């Protein structure tokens, strides 16, 4: 069940909220967990019991890690990591592995392996990371394990973030899972609604509108595309990806607020960044933190001699690419992003400090845009062809049939404004505080709520008028 369907918005969500608000605090986790099972079973019924089984084992391993010492403790942690990683590897990378083995076999003139393709459980990349953060945090002594299974299951399985994040580490949510009565108030709820509806608008009005044009261009034979077509699609794809995923994150964080949770911010005006590394500190922040804490630092981080610190950076980005999807184009995406960050660490950043902010922002945007071509197009050859077209500057006119609509132009203008407005620190601060309604006057809150009602009406009108457009991160 996706957040941008009428089934979720008009049935599941309001009914759940009413039941949740009416449920006594000590049963709220149980109630939210039950709703999450229903939510997940609706989207991926084949996997719900498998995931519940893994949840039970991880919960038990968490207790064991906490109770044990020495090698046993480490053994339980390794068991948990092996369990989650093998689960992730099997479901996410088995098809990719066999496909590539078959390519090699074919090249060598051998017979291909016939195999039944493995279906991908919904949200596997997200809940695998969350489960690992639970056992690792307990192992590191950051937090004790949760006493109730339902509390733990809710941490991993809560419907707001199970399908597409944000990745909430155990440490960030541990206290709220046990007791969040202080946060079960109307300030949180209003803030939650505000975040939810603005997130919905980002997805439905901006990302989906841009997506129509992008799909139109990328579905066209590249030989018939002009350089300008490719530029327009690639630029729009940057904004589409941002508003799609940031919209989803806002909705998830908003649902969290409605339930009394504080999920961490996932995007902080990434396109206003003045270096590529800074963009990645502001883009999918929770994934970045997870990779930093549970991968980059354990493999050595910036320690070590020679090329090792740089290799570590690059390696983490490659893992990040592959984590998104098991395709060579996602590998290219990760490798490209890692390459740029390494270049910055080597010398580029020093050079960039000398150039005007506008140039720096432009460089960051275009660098990211090249990566997004690979992220969007899962055919490496085609992606390279598009990048080649972009920089060929051959045909700087739009191809008939691919002209953007006025609606596209309007929403890309909105996207540009809200992406780059973060350059101004005071506006960025004001926008970040926009969702906080606790100290606002009735007039201000009412105006914000009115904005939400209008946005909800516009989004609902769009949703019931068009075909379903899934969130881009749902496939991960």
């Amino acid at each position, binding site marked *: *069940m996706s957040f941008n*369907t*009428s*089934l979720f*918005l*008009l*049935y599941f*969500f*309001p009914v759940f*909220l*009413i039941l949740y*608000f009416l449920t006594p605090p000590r049963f709220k986790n149980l109630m939210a967990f039950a709703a999450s099972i229903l939510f997940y079973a*609706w*989207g*991926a*019924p*084949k996997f719900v019991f498998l995931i519940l089984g893994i949840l039970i084992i991880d919960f038990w391993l968490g207790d064991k890690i906490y109770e044990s010492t020495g090698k046993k403790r480490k053994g339980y942690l390794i068991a948990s990591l092996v369990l989650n990683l093998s689960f992730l590897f099997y479901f996410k990378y088995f098809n990719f592995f066999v496909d590539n083995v078959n390519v090699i076999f074919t090249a060598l003139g051998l017979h291909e392996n016939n195999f039944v393709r493995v279906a991908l459980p919904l949200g596997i990349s997200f809940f695998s990371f969350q489960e690992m953060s639970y056992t690792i945090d307990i192992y590191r002594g950051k937090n004790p394990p949760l006493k109730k299974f339902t509390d733990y299951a809710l941490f991993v399985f809560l419907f707001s973030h199970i399908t597409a994040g944000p990745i909430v580490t155990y440490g960030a949510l541990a206290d709220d899972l046990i007791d969040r009565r202080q946060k079960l108030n*109307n*300030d949180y*709820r*209003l803030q939650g*609604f505000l975040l939810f509806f603005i997130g919905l608008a980002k997805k439905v009005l901006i990302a989906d509108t841009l997506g129509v044009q992008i799909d139109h261009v990328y579905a066209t034979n590249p030989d018939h595309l002009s350089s300008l077509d490719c530029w327009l699609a690639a630029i729009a794809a940057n904004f589409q990806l941002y508003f799609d995923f940031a919209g989803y994150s806002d909705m998830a964080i908003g649902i969290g607020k409605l339930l009394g949770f504080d999920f961490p911010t996932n995007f902080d005006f990434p396109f206003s960044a003045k270096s590529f590394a800074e963009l990645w500190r502001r883009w999918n922040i929770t994934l970045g933190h997870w990779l930093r804490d549970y991968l980059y630092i354990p493999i050595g981080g910036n320690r070590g001699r020679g090329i090792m610190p740089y290799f570590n950076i690059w390696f983490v980005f490659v893992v990040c690419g592959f984590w998104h999807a098991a395709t060579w184009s996602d590998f290219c995406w990760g490798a490209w992003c890692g390459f740029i960050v390494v270049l910055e660490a080597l010398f580029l950043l020093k050079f960039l400090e000398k150039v005007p902010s506008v140039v720096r922002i432009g460089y960051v945007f275009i660098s990211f845009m090249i990566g997004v071509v690979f992220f969007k197009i899962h055919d490496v050859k085609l992606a390279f062809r598009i990048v080649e077209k972009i920089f060929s500057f051959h045909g700087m006119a739009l191809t*008939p*049939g*691919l*002209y953007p*609509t*006025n*609606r596209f132009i*309007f929403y890309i203008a909105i996207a540009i404004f809200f992406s780059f407005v973060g350059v101004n620190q005071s506006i960025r601060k004001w926008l970040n505080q926009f969702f906080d*309604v606790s100290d*606002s*006057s*009735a007039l201000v*809150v*009412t105006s914000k*709520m009115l904005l*939400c*009602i209008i946005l*909800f*009406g*516009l989004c*609902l*009108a*769009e*949703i*019931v*008028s068009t075909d*379903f457009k899934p969130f881009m991160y749902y496939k991960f």
Partner: protein
Amino acid sequence: MGTKYKYFLVGLFVLLLLVPALQRRFQFISEASFALVKVPDASALPEPTFKAFLESSYQDSVVSWFNATAGFRPLLVRLRNQIDYSCFHLAHGTTVYGKGGYLFLDESMKSFIGQTFDSALLCRRTDTIVMLQKYLAARNIPLLYVMAPGKTSFDQVYLPYEYKALKRSITGYELLGNRLEAHQVDYINLSTYFDKIATTSSYPLFPKQGLHWTTYGAAVALDTIYKKVASILQFAPLKIDLSHVTISSEPKYPDDDLAVAMNIFRIRPMDTLATPAPVCINANSGDIRKPKILFIGDSYTFVFGFTKLPIQIFDSASRYWFYMRSAKDFSDIMKEGNDLATIDLKSALGQFDLVIILSTDARYDYGDYGLYTRLINDKAIQ
């Protein structure tokens, strides 16, 4: 801000989310249905099966069903379409927004620019017209083919720029004209005629917001066709006076059919259109012949019915075989016609003095609408 007010706002939001579902269930506000769009039956929720549930196909169909039957959907769809139309000059579905607010049908435009053009098919279909002509000639029934102007070709200067820029191959119009000429099929090219009179016509021949010719345009076309019929059947035609018209800028079906299909609240004011009240001079003189005509054609023939002219100039037994699907009577064009599958076509044809096939450019590849094949195969149920 007071605690009560915050409770009110939270409650308001929950209610806001619930209202469409309540509307769907109780229909407490009556909603106008969609024009020309099929909406699934609200009671036909997909049948659940365990297999379909596991494969998620059941969930997909339920999501689609909830979307299609959501409360306030007609209102919401119109809201979205209206915003796109008024703010972005964008039309949805099969309608395309052209320059100056001119609306076009997507399918017709594709046909016009040659995107959907299949020369082999058109040649085959033209051959059936030739064969039909021979078949009818053997029974002393002349055939007249009318090449009618489509909205797209007539108003092509108002096409969106990107369509105009698309490369156009040889069109059906050119190919059909050449073949009809070569096979000596009697035909009138109303496209050329309409282009000639476009600037001199007293009133618009095509509406801005409709697909078909205006009622006035249809009357002009029918007047021309009538004169040709008179020359083929060799009788003195009535003189048709089209100067009596009612002028109005109020949208009136079918002059605004494309606008109606857009499902919006309000369309921009239309151009001033004329609805003629044709008068036939000498209609009461005794020796006037009113031939029995059979029209076979697309929806453009439909508009003849709104002119009230056919009932004045043709015999009351004249009929309009709408896409060869139903037999309509010009005296009540909106009435559902008799199903042609139940009619003995051979004997029905024998009653007419002349057969007219009328097609616009988007329908040239319909040929004779399958009449000849049906006559030969004798599939009619009798």
